[in-house]
């Protein structure tokens, strides 16, 4: 039997993941049932005993869902446009998508605060024009959180969709037209189904990343817009109750894995994460 020696190249990455991801994750899971020493499942029951925690958990998934939808509504047309325009303009559009990657999340979140707050740019502009008389409640609200998070996560939606769309042969649309399909029908019955793996990849990426947000909801949200990461950070930083923090983290991970599992029933995961190799 011959072992492909090139396979050894993944060894460093595997060791790295083991040491800095798998081991800490195990350590955290163990901590959730061993701290305090007689903890058992008490950290978990404590989480579910407080109604506020469940509301925050529900809210976390709700905000992640809304963010995913907003990213999809903006991201798909944008990615489609990138495939439809000449190469040079597509390059500019790509830079526009990537630009946010190169500045800090914190800076962008503060920038949104400056734009959206009651005395901020947008509200002053609208009120100076006489379009509104009272400032719109754009910040310290769920709206503010969704705006901020969608902006930050948009590239994770656009890039996978664009990667799939650009591999769809334009001849397919032409063939559909030849067979009598209107442009709308051709899009709906040919382009859309073929782009589905990219759409699902984008949605999963955005959704999973959104679940872990905490700076943006803290700065742009109101009292009711808490996400579970904020609770975890408080337990880690302030109260030093790392057992409870670990239990909440394990719960968040478990819910996320459950969703990925359900999603994997609906679609083939390799379509989503490994479609590049199948051509």
């Amino acid at each position: 039997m011959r072992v492909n020696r090139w396979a050894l190249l993944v060894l460093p990455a595997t060791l790295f993941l083991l040491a800095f991801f798998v081991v800490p994750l195990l350590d955290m899971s163990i901590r959730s049932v061993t701290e305090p020493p007689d903890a058992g499942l008490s950290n978990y029951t404590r989480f579910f005993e407080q109604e506020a925690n469940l509301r925050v958990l529900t809210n976390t998934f709700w905000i992640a869902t809304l963010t995913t939808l907003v990213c999809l509504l903006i991201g798909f047309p944008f990615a489609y446009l990138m495939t439809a325009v000449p190469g040079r303009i597509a390059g500019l559009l790509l830079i526009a998508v990537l630009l946010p990657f190169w500045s800090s999340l914190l800076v962008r979140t503060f920038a949104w605060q400056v734009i959206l707050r009651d005395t901020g740019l947008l509200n002053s502009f609208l009120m100076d024009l006489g379009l509104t008389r009272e400032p719109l409640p754009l910040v310290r609200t769920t709206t503010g959180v969704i705006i901020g998070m969608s902006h930050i996560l948009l590239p994770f939606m656009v890039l996978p969709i664009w990667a799939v769309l650009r591999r769809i042969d334009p001849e397919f649309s032409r063939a559909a037209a030849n067979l009598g399909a209107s442009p709308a029908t051709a899009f709906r019955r040919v382009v859309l189904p073929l782009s589905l793996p990219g759409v699902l990849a984008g949605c999963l990426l955005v959704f999973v990343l959104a679940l872990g947000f905490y700076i943006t909801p803290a700065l742009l949200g109101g009292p009711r817009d808490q996400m579970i990461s904020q609770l975890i950070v408080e337990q880690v930083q302030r109260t030093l109750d790392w057992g409870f923090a670990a239990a909440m983290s394990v719960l968040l991970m478990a819910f996320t894995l459950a969703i990925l599992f359900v999603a994997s029933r609906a679609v083939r995961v390799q379509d989503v994460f490994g479609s590049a190799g199948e051509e």
Partner: protein
Amino acid sequence: MRRGMTVAAVLAAAVVVGCSSGATGPEPQGAAASPVKLTGDACDPPRQDGVTLTLAAQGGAYQDALTKAWEEPYTALTGVEWINDGNSSNATVRAQVESGQVTWDVVDVGSDFGLDAHKALLEPLDFGLIPRDEMNPDLRATDYRVPVMTYGTVLAYNTDASTGKTPTGWADFFDPSKIPGKRGVWDYATGGIFEMALLADGVAPADLYPLDLDRAAAKLDAIKDDIVLWGTGAESRELIGSGEVAMSMMWNGRTWGAIHEDNRPVDIQWNQQILSADYFVVPKGSPNREAAMRFIAWAVCAANNGALSKYIPYGPTNVNSEPDAAMVDDLAVSHVDDSTAYFDDAYLVDHFDEIDAAWQDWKSR
């Protein structure tokens, strides 16, 4: 970071110089070889050349003030060099102690730390050296912490946004019909918001504890739609300065920054302030435990404790210490009266889960 690098460079140079001079002269080879003896007066420490202490605080203007008021004069006096870390956090103290990798010698912490509940993480302080009996008793030194500076959690108001009306106390903060507008509140269950709601509802400062959480939550409901939560002092300064909130609970040092550095129309209502302190603690297993005790004793002794107020509006904790004359009106300790409240730190730490649950519950409802 830059300061850390500079200190490291100075240290490296000192080591080189120390080695070469050791070959030619009779000077001791640095204090690492000769441990500091704990003798003499707190205000009069011995030379400790070659010792480097690491001080962790919250960075920013406060850390700069600590450097100017205490670190630099202490270096001139004793030869102790400094490494500053601007990311003090209770979690890091715990992580350092539990992993056995303690690099911090002196840590500046808030009133929620340094209690008996944290004794596994901290060295008992040397009160043979540190003048505990000179400390303001309302600030609750423990066996593990000593207060080093005072500040107030106060009612700050933007004079433009509050439309000419002056809030007289927390009752006005909780009454939107008297002064409309948003209210800034620290998003931290034991940061004072429940105390303020109870003070507004007529509870006397001495009767705050045990906290009546239901009563406080009911009072908070009156301003639920007007509340803007802030997470850092810098945010509160921005909120009150820009007028996004008409009033805010905030720390008097940040209010001072909004008034004197940002030149914003902001003022402080000192009535019903909560007076509290920052503390110095020594993590368990600090490699320079004795030198750390020496420094802490020196920083809180009567002659030096007031020096911090030259650079930042945080007053002394030593009752025999004089604050800076130019800053005295801006210090929370100068405005202490019958209306002043104090945190019961031990109660707040022991009941944190219950109080935090009430806060999360109120927020998420």
